[in-house]
């Protein structure tokens, strides 16, 4: 039998962080408040608690945002903004898209930058120095997945991940996997699955946004990506 002892700690079920902050400060607590925040779909606790200036940590995965292309003509880019890569922990990116053009490559770009990037897909068959490949057409065995794509990727976004005195400091890394399906009827000979991975090698810049960009054509209507953070991994 499990016994949970709670002394001077209050559990709440609230809609927003502001609600939790108000409850915490009203009760004169400092850090002894935990809440399920509906807007985040996550358990949250404060690192510091004070009116309007609290800082928070979450247990498990927290949804940062879900963005979806609603325009009939599609979109060439989607952006997750308001990030704090040095303090958010680990990011999990997942999504699905389809393309209006063949031969697309989908890249994710921290802060929208195209410099100091290096990424590959499946042992270098496809590569990029302008972003992080998260899906692409050029795959081993010559498949032509110009139709739709699903991917997920883990991103380690913090600077100094190897210690501030390390000569490898500043390398932000990611890896992921993408399933690509051609425009024609999917079959076992045309579906492909590719591993992706790479780095953003820049020592002094916090990741504050993540742009997803189609290098050819547009991401069609209905394209949807979600970005989560796993703060306990910070």
């Amino acid at each position: 039998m499990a016994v949970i002892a709670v002394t001077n700690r209050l559990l709440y079920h609230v809609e927003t962080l502001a609600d939790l902050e108000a409850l915490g400060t009203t009760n004169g607590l400092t850090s002894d408040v935990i809440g399920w925040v509906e807007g985040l779909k996550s358990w949250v606790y404060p690192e510091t608690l004070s009116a309007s200036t609290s800082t928070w940590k979450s247990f498990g995965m927290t949804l940062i945002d879900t963005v979806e292309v609603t325009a009939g003509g599609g979109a060439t880019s989607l952006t997750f903004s308001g990030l704090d890569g040095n303090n958010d922990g680990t990011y999990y990116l997942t999504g699905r898209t389809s393309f209006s053009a063949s031969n697309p490559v989908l890249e994710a770009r921290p802060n929208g930058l195209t410099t100091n990037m290096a990424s590959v897909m499946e042992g270098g068959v496809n590569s990029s120095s302008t972003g992080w490949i998260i899906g692409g057409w050029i795959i081993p065995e010559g498949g032509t997945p110009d139709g739709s794509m699903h991917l997920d990727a883990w991103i380690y976004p913090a600077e100094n991940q190897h210690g501030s005195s390390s000569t490898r400091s500043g390398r932000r890394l990611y890896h992921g996997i993408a399933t690509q399906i051609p425009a024609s009827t999917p079959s076992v000979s045309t579906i492909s699955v590719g591993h992706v991975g790479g780095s953003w090698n820049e020592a002094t810049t916090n990741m504050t946004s993540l742009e997803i960009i189609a290098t050819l054509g547009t991401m069609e209507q209905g394209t949807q990506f979600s970005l989560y953070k796993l703060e306990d991994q910070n």
Partner: protein
Amino acid sequence: MSFTKTRNWDTETDGDAPVQSKRLADANCVVLDGPNGEYFGWEDADGNLFPGTILTENTAAAAARTALATEISNKAAEETARLSTLAALKAKREAGTDLDTDDLNALADLFLGVALT
């Protein structure tokens, strides 16, 4: 990336928002000026700006995307040629045809990047 607000998004003249954000569902839709051109985005109650997608690329961004597309297209062509060469050599082998010097050079190019004489 830094952004400045150009104007509010006008659903009557601009149409529906091209991108939806779960987090910014209640924020004001705006048009932003950013590093790669004109963006659709949001402005929250505190005046913070959040880009959503590029509406119109500026000349530099369009050129960069074209260059990238060309690079990818060239890679695709190289990959197609590589597979074509491999298929031709495989067909020769399966037909029992001896490989000549050109075939060996093709093989060397494919796997070693050197030329035989």
